[in-house]
């Protein structure tokens, strides 16, 4: 009997295209699992069961008629609830959006899923407007970590992370402005890609920061992540930040090995600029040993200090976020949760000159990164400095929020992938980032896949009843 809960996209595609399983059966199994277990994790804000089953039946009819669209045909997925899908409200996990939030058009990414024949199960929890969380003063509770429900999922794509780890979906979409795809991926033992700025359209996604926003795929394996990026990447003339370039097959380098590849280690991010938790640091060192053993050449690489990137990220992010929210902040501040109010409002007090200079510094950092990466194929650094903390410990969640090395790659616009590196002594996931040159996602996947194949981290499951 097929274990639908933890089926990979790659395996599901074989079974679906071979007519060995039915999209309806697959979808129903995951809907049943959500109904049975999501009250412990709060990963979904809206489960669109009827719409999903209609989509699954349509996929089944096409597949049975010999019209298989590709690896996502008949595969269930979830969207972070800041991404538009016709017929389902986009709430941004906020009271502000509870009314009049039914989109009339799909986001570009939703449209691409639809064309691929994928089945949307629903919309997942987020931090309020992708910034204010984890919060307990919103209309819905925050998502909880399936590896231990007393712990934080990371954010802001928190529900997408929880839904994947819990075996509710094999694919989910997150967004990433300062690390919000890679944080829940790191905390929940998943693979999360923030591709190059411009690689995936942001049209139809509620913005946080125009300069730093990315849409990204979240999955349980590297191969699945590459399959998902194949579907959602592509130029969109209606997104002014979308890159007018073609896309490769992101799975094309999987299985090629990494012998002779040059891998940099941005060690100062997690050893001197911040000191990572010892178990997190050891996970990275062990991963480097694995990659070295596979024939990669590994050397340290030095970039600007971590806080230089963090400050640049926040000046730009808060300025742009405040510009988006200013009218509502003036007229209805009581409709925001405390954390979103506190975080976004900082943008009201940043001077125009500081914002402009932040974007000028960004340009300098991009150029310096380009030069630093000339002699390397990819680089490795920490994602989170610590494993997931307890979600109801407000001090700890606030502290770990800033203890990360993800924001630099939003400032740089460069691709960055969070990959599991094991588990802490308390059974919580550990992770690292593999980062690369702009538009070089396929090389990142090559290295990540080689590492994943040499370990068994992505094969482990959280302790949830079948």
């Amino acid at each position, binding site marked *: 009997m097929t274990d639908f809960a933890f089926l990979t996209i790659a395996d599901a595609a074989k079974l679906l295209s071979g007519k060995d399983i039915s999209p309806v059966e697959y979808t129903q199994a995951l809907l049943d699992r959500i109904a049975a277990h999501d009250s412990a994790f709060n990963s979904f804000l809206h489960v669109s069961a009827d719409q999903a089953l209609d989509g699954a039946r349509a996929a089944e009819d096409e597949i049975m008629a010999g019209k298989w669209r590709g690896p996502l045909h008949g595969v269930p997925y979830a969207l972070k609830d800041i991404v538009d899908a016709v017929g389902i409200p986009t709430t941004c996990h906020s009271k502000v959006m509870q009314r009049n939030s039914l989109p009339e058009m799909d986001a570009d990414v939703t449209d691409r899923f639809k064309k691929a024949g994928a089945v949307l199960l629903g919309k997942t929890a987020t931090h309020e407007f992708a910034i204010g969380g984890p919060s307990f003063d919103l209309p819905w509770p925050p998502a909880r970590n399936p590896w231990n429900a007393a712990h934080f999922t990371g954010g802001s794509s928190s529900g997408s992370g929880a839904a994947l780890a819990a075996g509710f979906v094999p694919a989910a979409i997150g967004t990433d402005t300062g690390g919000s795809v890679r944080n829940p991926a790191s905390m929940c033992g998943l693979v999360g890609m923030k591709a*190059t700025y411009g690689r995936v359209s942001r049209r139809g996604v509620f913005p946080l920061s125009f300069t730093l926003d990315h849409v990204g795929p979240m999955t349980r394996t590297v191969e699945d992540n590459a399959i998902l990026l194949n579907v959602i990447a592509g130029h969109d003339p209606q997104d002014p930040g979308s890159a007018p370039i073609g896309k490769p097959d992101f799975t094309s380098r999987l299985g090629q090995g990494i012998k002779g590849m040059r891998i940099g280690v941005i060690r100062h991010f997690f050893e001197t600029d911040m000191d990572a938790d010892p178990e997190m640091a050891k996970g990275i060192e062990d991963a480097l040993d694995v990659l070295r053993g596979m024939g990669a050449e590994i050397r340290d690489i030095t970039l600007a200090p971590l806080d230089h990137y963090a400050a640049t990220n926040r000046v730009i992010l808060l300025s742009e976020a405040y510009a988006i929210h200013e009218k509502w902040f*003036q007229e209805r501040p009581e409709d925001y949760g405390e954390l979103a109010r506190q975080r976004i409002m900082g943008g*009201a007090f940043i*001077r125009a000159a500081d914002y402009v200079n932040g974007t*000028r510094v960004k340009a*300098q950092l991009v150029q310096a990164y380009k030069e630093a990466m000339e002699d390397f194929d990819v680089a490795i650094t920490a994602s989170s400095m610590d494993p997931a903390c307890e979600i109801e410990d407000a001090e700890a969640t*606030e*502290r770990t929020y800033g203890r990360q090395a993800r924001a630099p790659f939003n400032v740089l616009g460069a691709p960055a992938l969070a990959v599991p590196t094991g588990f802490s002594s308390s059974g919580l996931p550990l992770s690292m980032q593999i980062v690369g040159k702009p538009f070089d996602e396929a090389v990142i996947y090559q290295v990540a896949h080689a590492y994943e194949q040499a370990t068994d981290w992505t094969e482990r499951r959280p302790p949830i009843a079948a």
Partner: protein
Amino acid sequence: MALYGGRLRGVLRPRLTSAESEWLHYLVGRFYPLEQRSREGRMGDIDFEKALEAARAAGLDRMADRYPDDVARAFAFAQSLRTRITIDVEPADEPAHVYRAAGGEL
């Protein structure tokens, strides 16, 4: 001793990183209301009245009236960012534009 993962590193180390300072600043603000600190003359580097004045100048009167602590905290954080961002640019250095001229260059 739950502070800093039970290891006390954050409070014992003589010099905090800016991210750690930011975190400690947040903790003090979150669990020790700013208005109370203001009354007690322990505002430190946060000027409560200046923050509320800036909020009202930005049209955030309702916010200033209802959530003065949030305003002061956001104001203090914005001020701290100004000291953290490293500006070393030449007059001719252009910003990183959102809009692309052509091709895939960032």
